[in-house]
C-alpha cells in the first residue's frame, strides 16, 4: 500500500495555491489523475518521484520515502517515470536506453517484444517517431521494475491511432507486471479504459476520488446540467 499525505505551496500562473493531498493507493491499482492545467497534477507526480520537495509523508509498502526526518532522493525511490516529452537519452540506441537503467538484457528483450520494438532495438532514438519514442520511454520506466509507475500525460503528444496502440500496450504491461500506476491524463476515454480509480485535482485539492464510471458519469451529468 502507498500512503500519501503531502503539502506544498505552489506559485503558479494563476497565483499562489496550496497542494494538499492525502490519499491511499492499493498495490497494483491504476489511477488516472485528472484536472485542469495548473491544478498541481504534474507537481504531485514530481513530489512522489522526489524531483521536488514537499512537506508531509510518503510511504510505499512500509518504506518511508518522505518524512519529517528523512527524504529519499529519486535514485533510491523505486519509481518509473514517463515524461510527456519522452526524455530519452539521445546519444543512445533503443536497447542502450533500457540497459542504462538495468543491465537485465532478457527483461529488455521481453519489454521490446511486448511493445513491438524488437526490430528497432539498435536504432538511435533520435530517428524514431513520437509513438515509438513514448513506447521506448515506457519500456525504460519498466526496466527498474518499479513499485510505482508515474506517467505525465503519456498520450497527449500522439495522434489518435498511436494513442490507442500505446494505451493497449500500457494496459498489457500493467496486467503483466501489476505495477501500481498513476497516470496524469486529460483524455477521458483513456482514463475510463485504463484506470481502476480516478482522482480529480482542482487548485491543489482532490475534489473527486472514485471508480471511473462514478466520476466520469457524474462529471458528464454536471456538464449536461450546465449546458441546459
Amino acid at each position: 500500500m502507498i500512503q500519501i499525505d503531502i503539502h506544498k505551496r505552489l506559485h503558479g500562473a494563476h497565483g499562489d495555491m496550496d497542494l494538499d493531498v492525502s490519499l491511499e493507493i492499493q498495490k497494483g491499482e491504476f489511477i488516472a489523475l485528472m484536472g485542469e492545467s495548473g491544478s498541481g497534477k504534474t507537481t504531485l507526480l514530481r513530489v512522489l518521484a522526489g524531483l521536488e520537495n514537499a512537506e508531509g509523508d510518503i510511504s510505499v509498502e512500509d518504506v518511508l520515502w518522505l518524512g519529517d526526518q528523512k527524504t529519499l532522493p529519486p535514485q533510491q525511490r523505486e519509481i518509473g517515470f514517463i515524461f510527456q516529452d519522452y526524455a530519452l537519452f539521445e546519444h543512445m540506441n533503443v536497447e542502450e536506453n533500457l540497459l542504462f537503467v538495468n543491465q537485465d538484457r532478457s527483461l529488455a528483450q521481453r519489454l521490446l517484444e511486448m511493445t513491438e520494438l524488437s526490430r528497432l532495438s539498435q536504432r538511435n532514438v533520435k530517428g524514431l517517431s513520437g509513438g515509438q519514442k513514448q513506447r521506448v520511454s515506457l519500456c525504460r520506466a519498466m526496466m527498474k521494475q518499479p513499485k510505482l509507475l508515474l506517467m505525465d500525460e503519456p498520450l497527449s503528444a500522439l495522434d489518435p491511432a498511436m494513442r490507442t496502440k500505446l494505451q493497449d500496450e500500457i494496459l498489457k504491461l500493467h496486467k503483466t507486471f501489476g505495477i501500481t500506476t498513476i497516470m496524469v491524463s486529460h483524455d477521458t476515454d483513456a482514463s475510463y479504459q485504463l484506470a481502476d480509480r480516478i482522482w480529480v485535482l482542482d487548485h491543489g485539492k482532490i475534489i473527486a476520488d472514485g471508480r471511473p464510471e462514478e466520476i466520469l458519469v457524474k462529471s458528464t451529468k454536471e456538464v449536461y446540467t450546465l449546458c441546459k
Partner: protein
Amino acid sequence: MQGILNVISLDVAPFILSFKLAGVTTVILFVLSLPLAWYLSQSSSKTKPVLEAVTALPIVLPPSVLGFYILVVLSPNSAVGAFFEDLFGVKLVFSFTGLVVASCFYSLPFMVQPLQSGFESLNKHMLEASYLAGKSKLQTVFKVALPNIKPSLITALIITFAHTVGEFGVVLMVGGSIPGETKVASVAIYEMVEVMEYGTAHIYSAFMVLISFIVLLSVYIFNHSQRKIGVL
C-alpha cells in the same frame, strides 16, 4: 632561396612552447571548469550572477591588468608566491608554471561559457530520467550530459587551446621572454618586430594565422556536421 633557408633554420621552440602551454592549460581548465560550468547551469542561487561575472572578467579586462594582478599575487613577495616557493620550491613568476597559472585565468571563460551553455540547453527531464534510473549526479554528467553536448564540448576545448596559443600580454608580463621556458610564439614575434627581423616575423605570423584558421575551420565543420546529424 633565402626564404626557404629562413624556413629551414626557423627556431620552432617558441611554437612548441606555445602548444605545450595551450595543451596543459586546456587539460587543467577542463578539469576545473567542468564542476563550475555544471554548477552555474543548474543553479538558481543569488551568487550565480556574481560567479558568472567573475568568470567572464578576463574577456573584458585588458591583458595588462590581468597580467599585473597575477604578477602581484604570484610574486615571491606575496603570500601565495612565498607559500609555493617555500613549500614546493616552485617559482610562479618568469617560469612555465607561472605561465600555466596565468593562462588558466586568462582562458577560463572560453572553457566555462560553452560548457555552461551546453549544459543549459539540455532537456532537464533527460537529466531527471537519469537520476530516476538510479544514477548519481557525477554519473549523469559523464554518461548523459557530456555525450549530449559534444559540439559545446569540442568548442570549449578547441577555443581554449587556440586562445591560449594566441596569448600575448599576460604571458609577456608574467613570464617575460626566457628562451625555452617562457618565450612563446607570440612573444617571439613581438621581439622580432622590435629588432626589425620582418622576414622571420612574417613566417612566424603566417604560421600562426594558418594554424588558427585550421583550428577554427575544424570547429565549424564539426559543429555543422553535428547539426546535420541532429536534423536527421
